[in-house]
């Protein structure tokens, strides 16, 4: 049969179910792709032998009733995987092999899939270009000089390059949606609490959320269904009935009210992004949706708020990497304090250090009220903006990012311009809402651009439906030539 790896997850599942392809054949096809795509540097660890074993087991005793029957999946290296090295893109975890499996990955395996490898990411998910990884930057398959976005850059790159049929990432301030936008793929950050955080290396606990990254909206629904669910091991997990997102996917969006926030038209935004937004509005309107102008007045404070809250939590979350119990320990240091200093100096990269410093500063006595406490108050106002708007609308449409993928090295020396990449994505994390980035077009260089759909809390089904209808009428095709193999 034709190359199965450029099909959607849903098509692949159908082919497995109808026995057009075995799990072993499928796995071998991906192994071959991965081996010829080393230039992209999307993988930190591969688990081919283990994957082929699992595939064989599946083929010997197939269960086609599962959501992900015999499907190999690579996942971001932020998810702890039992007996498989988990680095979080950091030197400080370069030798860390968990004895446990994160809830989200366990959910995926319980639905019939298995691990193909661990995907590169920004160190501790701190970055927007995958350039902060200790394991080297990842290349965007769209172009050999382009970043794949971040922090789930290995995930977006591997997905767009057909190295995994679907994948998962984590999104603290845009780390799923921005790389999806940069690679012409679909990425969803679910409602905070929908997917368990247990076993995911923490960056900023009140913002972190795992989510699917896929080629199509339908694939996204399948993956979300498989990975989400209540987990009593995570105190912030939401206890609710599980939904069948893929079965309930509908493309009729007639009468839905779509909010268009005026604050998302920022200065110096490329004309193409604006045009793309207009195109998106038109498609939704043609499908029978009603466009409503809304205002989210505190949007401009979202980025500074995020860059206080996230580093504050990170500075504390990363205190456990001290060289005492696991991970990297410096061989130098004559006492405990020196051991800490050397271990953390050698173990962490610059961006992580920068954020630990910011976080420590904003929590310090004398600065706490002015920064951390103020940021928490602003966060409530940002959330209230959304709550107020959602009284009269069903979803919000915005661009996903202010630009398409930039060049490797272009922003590494300018953290603020790097942070500005998250301007459309961070408000959603601060408010705990679900948001979807879907491919919508290309800029004048031919690089993909995405549009973002933001929903009410736990309203994933609705934004998936809107995305599904949009996808059918947008006619975006990701045209990636396999220049790397």
């Amino acid at each position: 049969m034709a190359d199965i790896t450029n099909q959607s997850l849903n098509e692949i599942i159908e082919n497995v179910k109808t026995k057009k392809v075995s799990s072993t054949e499928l796995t071998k096809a991906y192994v071959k792709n991965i081996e010829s795509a080393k230039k992209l540097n999307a993988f930190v660890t591969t688990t081919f032998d283990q994957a082929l074993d699992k595939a064989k087991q599946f083929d010997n005793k197939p269960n086609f009733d599962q959501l992900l029957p015999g499907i190999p999946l690579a996942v971001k290296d932020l998810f702890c995987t039992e007996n498989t090295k988990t680095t979080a893109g950091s030197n400080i975890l370069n030798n860390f092999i968990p004895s446990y499996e994160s809830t989200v990955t366990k959910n995926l395996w319980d639905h019939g899939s298995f691990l193909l490898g661990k995907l590169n990411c920004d160190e501790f998910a701190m970055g927007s270009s995958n350039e902060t990884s200790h394991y080297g930057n990842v290349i965007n398959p769209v172009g050999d000089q382009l970043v794949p976005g971040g922090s789930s850059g290995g995930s977006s790159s591997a997905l767009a390059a057909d190295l995994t049929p679907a994948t998962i990432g984590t999104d603290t301030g845009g780390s799923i949606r921005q790389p999806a936008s940069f690679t012409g793929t679909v990425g969803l950050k679910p409602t905070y609490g929908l997917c368990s955080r247990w076993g995911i290396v923490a960056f900023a606990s009140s913002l972190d959320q795992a989510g699917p990254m896929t080629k199509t909206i339908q694939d996204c629904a399948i993956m979300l269904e498989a990975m989400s669910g209540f987990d009593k091991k995570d105190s912030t997990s939401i206890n609710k009935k599980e939904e069948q997102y893929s079965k309930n996917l509908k493309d009729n969006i007639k009468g839905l009210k779509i909010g268009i926030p005026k604050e998302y038209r920022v200065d110096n935004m490329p004309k193409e992004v604006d045009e793309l937004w207009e195109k998106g509005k038109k498609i939704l309107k043609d499908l029978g949706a009603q466009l409503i102008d809304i205002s989210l007045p505190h949007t401009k404070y979202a980025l500074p708020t995020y860059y206080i809250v996230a580093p504050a939590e990170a500075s504390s979350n990363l205190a456990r990497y001290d060289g005492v119990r696991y991970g990297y320990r410096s061989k130098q240091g004559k006492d405990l304090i020196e051991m800490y200093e050397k271990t953390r100096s050698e173990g962490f990269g610059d961006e992580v250090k920068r954020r630990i410093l910011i976080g420590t500063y904003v929590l310090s006595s004398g600065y706490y009220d002015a920064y951390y406490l103020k940021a928490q108050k602003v966060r409530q106002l940002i959330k209230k903006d959304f709550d107020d708007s959602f009284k009269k609308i069903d979803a919000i449409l915005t661009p996903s990012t202010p630009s398409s993928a930039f060049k490797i090295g272009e922003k590494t020396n300018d953290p603020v311009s790097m942070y500005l990449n998250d301007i459309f994505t961070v408000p959603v994390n601060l408010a705990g809402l679900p948001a979807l980035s879907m491919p919508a077009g290309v800029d004048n260089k031919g690089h993909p651009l995405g549009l973002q759909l933001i929903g009410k809390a736990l309203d994933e089904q609705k934004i998936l439906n809107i995305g599904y209808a949009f996808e059918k009428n947008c006619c975006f095709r990701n045209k990636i030539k396999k220049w790397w193999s």
Partner: protein
Amino acid sequence: MSKEKFDYFIKGEKGKYEVVIGLEVHAQVLSKSKLFSGSSTKFGADPNNQVSLIDSAFPGMLPVINEECVKQAVRTGLGLNAKINNYSVFDRKNYFYADLPQGYQISQYKNPIVGEGKVLLDMPYGSKEIGIERLHLEQDAGKSIHDMDPSNTYVDLNRSGIALMEIVSKPDLRSPDEVNAYIKKLRSIMRYLGTCDGNMQEGSLRADVNVSVRKEGDTNFGTRCEIKNVNSIKFMQMAIEYEAARQVELIENGKKIDQETRLFDTKKNETRSMRSKEDAHDYRYFPDPDLLPLKLEQKLIDDLKKSLPELPDKKKERFVKEYGLNAYEANVLVSEKEISDYYEEVAKLSDKKLAATWMMGDLFAMLNDRGLDISKSPISAKHFAELVQAIKSGEISGRIAKEVFEIMVESGDNPKKIIESKGMKQQSDPKELEKMINEILSKNKDKVDQYKAGKEKLFGFFVGQVMKLSGGKANPQLTNEILKKLLKG
């Protein structure tokens, strides 16, 4: 009981100084598992055998609150007559140490689970109320072991994550004696409630002691020093005495007291500076984003309140009313729940007042000598009650009772059996006694004459003779009566 006057002051050259003390008591919550993980809390396991991935802070691990620990904190709060807060928040207290795996301790900072309360102390100069500022829940740290190896420190995480209640008093204590009474009262309340075993040797109860001094009559507080982590009442008292004297000396010499954290050296009996206010840690407290605020329903609090056992203050009142004990006796007998239980069992079966006297006398002395808790008493409450009844009914004398008591301790036998088998029963038959006394009187005619002539001191001699002849078994009261009657005749 005489009402003494409070008189604990430090005398300096320039006057008398009052000592002001506040305590932060860390009480280990009695619970099967830790505050945020399922690991066991049992004392004495091999190092690092009761450690989960959460306690050792592996990547991606998350805390989940142990409901039983929350209930224990609420029970304790209710026992301290304190306000229970329906809304409380867990915060992270950030600092680095090898036995603190997360790099932060989960504690409660701005919004504790329990607010203001009070504890009543019985002092020789009357009862005194000590204010409770707050009670909050927090994780214990692990243990660093520095003396196992000359160049390495070992870490044992068995204790890491165990639930502690930090009980903060107001600066209402004024002497080492009051500190002693306060700790004992807290311990007693928590043991009644079953919320902390109060075992100081195993570190279940430790305290940070805040000490300041001021001239008698001053209303402003002096600068305080905090003495960290003292683990016995005796050491707390020694530390306070040393520290108060040190501060008075500084003041008298015109020097300033620095607000600082000090350490008590138990070997040298002195406090030493650990860190000054300037070097104080900046703990960067902030709400733990892994945990939602703790919201308690009023019904849960009400239900817990209804299920509380009778506490020492109430029980003391009842003992006075129901058993006719005086305040001192009642106070001693309610100090430990096990003692009060033992007493009530004895009092049910015997004379209530006599039971109290004998428990507080011979029984306590014996337990004390042997270093035993009352729960390990070689004499059961039932046997002890039988002994008290044997005394009360005149079956045996007090002197014989002491002998019976000794045999009971050694053999564990019931007193009836001992009295019978050893023929220790008191001679209480008036006819028999009269016969015996007549015999003695007729043998000692000369002394009878002397007695009758006015030498009344000889009465004791006759009693002695009766006792000798009866082998100590003659009922002393009856003996006295009959002797008097016959000597008159």
